[in-house]
C-alpha cells in the first residue's frame, strides 16, 4: 500500500519528469528555428537601415531603400530596370495564371481519378509519383526545343504564357494526387443524393462535391500561387525579353556582382518579394492546417 508521503513523492517525481521532457522537446523545436529567424530578422532590419549592418539591430533608420517603388532600379550606378511595377505584374501573371490553370486541371482530374474506374488508373497514379521525383531541369532542353518548334520561344508575352502552361503542367500531377484524397473523403451518398435530387454528374460535382472540398482547393491554390511566385529556373531559361522578366529574375540579377550589391535596396526588394507569400499564407493558413473535411454527420 502506498502512503500519503509515498503519493507526494511520486507526484513530485512525475512533475520533474514532465519538466525535463518539456525542456528537451522545446529545445529540439527551437534550435533549427534560430537560423531562420536570424535570416528574416536581418532582412527586415537591413531593409530599414541606412548602412550595411551585420546584426539584427537596424541603424540609421530610413525608407530610402525602397526608392525603386517610384523610379528605376539601379545596379552599380546604372539603371537596370526602368520601373519595379512591370516585374510585379509579370510575377503576378505567372503566379495567378499557374494557380488558375492548376486548379482547373486538378479539380477535374482529381475527381476523375477518385471517382471513376478506368483502364490504367493505377499505373497513372503510380507514375505521377515517379515522374514527380524526376528533377524538372531534365525537361528544360526538351521543352526549349518544343517551344522553339511551335514558335513560342522569345515571343514576349506568349513566352510568359507558355511558361505558365509548363509550370502548371509540372505542378498539376502532385496536386491532383492531393485533391484525390479530398475527393475520396466525400461520401458517395452525398453524390448519390445529388443525382437523385436531379443533378447531372457535372452539376453534382459543381454544386455538391466542389464546395465540400473547398479547403483542398484553397490549399492547392496557395501552393500553386507560391510556386508560381517563386519560379526562377523556367523564367530564366525561356524568357529573353526583359519586358517580361519576373521579380525572381530581377533579384538574381541584382546580386550578380558583389562590388555592385546595394544591401539595403536588396533587403527592401526581398522583403516586398516575401510579402504576398506571407499575406497569402496568413489569410489561408486555417485551410492549410485543416486539410481534411469535417462535419458531415452530426
Amino acid at each position, binding site marked *: 500500500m502506498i502512503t500519503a508521503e509515498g503519493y507526494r513523492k511520486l507526484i513530485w517525481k512525475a512533475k520533474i519528469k514532465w519538466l525535463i521532457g518539456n525542456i528537451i522537446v522545446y529545445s529540439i523545436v527551437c534550435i533549427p528555428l534560430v537560423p531562420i529567424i536570424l535570416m528574416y530578422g536581418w532582412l527586415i532590419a537591413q531593409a530599414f537601415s541606412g548602412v550595411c549592418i551585420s546584426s539584427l539591430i537596424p541603424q540609421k533608420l530610413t525608407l530610402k531603400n525602397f526608392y525603386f517603388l517610384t523610379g528605376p532600379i539601379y545596379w552599380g550606378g546604372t539603371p537596370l530596370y526602368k520601373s519595379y511595377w512591370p516585374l510585379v505584374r509579370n510575377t503576378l501573371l505567372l503566379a495567378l495564371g499557374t494557380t488558375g490553370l492548376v486548379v482547373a486541371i486538378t479539380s477535374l482530374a482529381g475527381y476523375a481519378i477518385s471517382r471513376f474506374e478506368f483502364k490504367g488508373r493505377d499505373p497513372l497514379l503510380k507514375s505521377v509519383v515517379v515522374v514527380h521525383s524526376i528533377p524538372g531541369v531534365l525537361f528544360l532542353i526538351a521543352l526549349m526545343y518544343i517551344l522553339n518548334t511551335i514558335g513560342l520561344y522569345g515571343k514576349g508575352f506568349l513566352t510568359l504564357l507558355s511558361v505558365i502552361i509548363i509550370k502548371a503542367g509540372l505542378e498539376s500531377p502532385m496536386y491532383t494526387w492531393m485533391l484525390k484524397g479530398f475527393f475520396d473523403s466525400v461520401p458517395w451518398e452525398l453524390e448519390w443524393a445529388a443525382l437523385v435530387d436531379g443533378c447531372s454528374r457535372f452539376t453534382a460535382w459543381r454544386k455538391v462535391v466542389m464546395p465540400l472540398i473547398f479547403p483542398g482547393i484553397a490549399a492547392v491554390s496557395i501552393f500553386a500561387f507560391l510556386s508560381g511566385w517563386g519560379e526562377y529556373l523556367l523564367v530564366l531559361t525561356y524568357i529573353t525579353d526583359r519586358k517580361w522578366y519576373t521579380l525572381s529574375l530581377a533579384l538574381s540579377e541584382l546580386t550578380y556582382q558583389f562590388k555592385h550589391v546595394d544591401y539595403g535596396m536588396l533587403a527592401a526588394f526581398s522583403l516586398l518579394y516575401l510579402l504576398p507569400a506571407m499575406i497569402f499564407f496568413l489569410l489561408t493558413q486555417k485551410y492549410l492546417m485543416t486539410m481534411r473535411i469535417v462535419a458531415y454527420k*452530426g
Partner: protein
Amino acid sequence: MVKVKLEHLTKRFGKVVAVNDLNLEIKDGEFMALLGPSGCGKTTTMLMIAGIYKPTKGHVYFNDVCVDDLPPKDRNVGMVFQSYALYPHMKVFDNIAFPLKLKKLPKDEIREKVKKVADFLEIGHLLDRKPAQLSGGQMQRVALARALVKEPDIFLMDEPLSNLDAKLRVVMRAEIKRLQKRLGITTIYVTHDQVEAMTMADRIAVLREGVLQQCAVPDELYLKPRNMFVGGFIGSPPMNFLDCSLVEENHEHYLDLGVFKLWIPPDIADLIMKNASGSELVLGIRPEDLKVTLTLPPEAKEAGQKSKVQAIRSEIYVLEPLGKDVIINTKLGDTLVKVVAPPTIRPSVGETIWLNFDLDKMHVFDKKTELAVV
C-alpha cells in the same frame, strides 16, 4: 403513381455477386420492405431502382416501361439515406429546396413548397440552420423533407432509422408509416431490422447474399417461413432449431431428437416424406410458441405419446427477465433452447419445467436444402 417491377435483376462487382436474379413486383402505393442482414444486396437493389447503379443483367420497370437507360435525375424518385446525406455546406432551407432549384421552379413557388413540407414535418423553425447544428432526429426529418418536396413517384429509404436512438426510432417508425399511407407513394424501404420491416411494411422481401428468400405479407412470413433463414431472421428472440430425423416404429411416425422423440400424425409424416430430400431434418419452434408449465398440464402427454401437445421435462439453465416476459434458457441435449414465458411463471435456475410442443406450431425443415417441408 408508379408500379415497380424488377426482372432477373443481377448486379456484380468484379467477382462479387451483390444481387442475384431478383424478381420482384412492387404494387402502386405499396410499402415494400427489403429485409436482410448487412451485405445481402438490399442497398444495391435500391440504388439500381434509383438508377445510380446499372444492373449487370436484368431490368427495372416503372409502370411496365423499362427504365434502364433513364438517368437518376429523370426517374423522379425521392431517396432517404442512412447517413441522411444532407449537403453540409447548405442551410436546411437550401437542402430542401435543392431538387426544386434544379427543376428551375420560380423562387416564390420554391419558398412556398419548402415551407409547406417543412411545416408538415415540423421542422419549419430549423430552416436557417446548417445540418451540423441539427440533432439526429431533425436531420432525419430534413432528409425526408428533401425527398418529399419534389413530390416523387417512388420513395426509396435506405435504413433511415438506424442512426436514431431507440426511443426516437419507435416514434419515427409510426410517423413514416402514417406518412406513406397518407401520401400513397410507392415506397421501398431497406432495413436489417425485422421489427421495422414487420411493423411498417405491407409486404416484406427477405434477401440473403443477393438472393430473394421469400416475399410475403408480414404474417405469412412469420407463420409460414419458406426456409430456415427466414424462420431464424423473423422474430425475436429467434426461432429455436433442433436437429432431428424421421423414424417409424410400430406403424407410428416420430421425430427423433436424440434425447426424446415426438409423435407426429400420419398426414404430417407423409408431407415430410414427400418433400424432404433425406431423413435429416430440423425442427423449428419459436420461443413464444413453446409453452412452459411447472407440471405436466392435463391437455398434454409426455413426449412420444399420441397427442397434439407433447411435453418434455427440462432444467432451467439461465433466466433473462424482460419485465413483461422472461426468457428461459434451457438445454435439450446439447442444444440451448430459448422460451418466452409469461411473468406469472417465475422459476429459478436449476428448477425443472415442462416444455410443451404444440404440433400446430412446429416448423419442419430439410437440413440439406434448408427449405420448409411442412
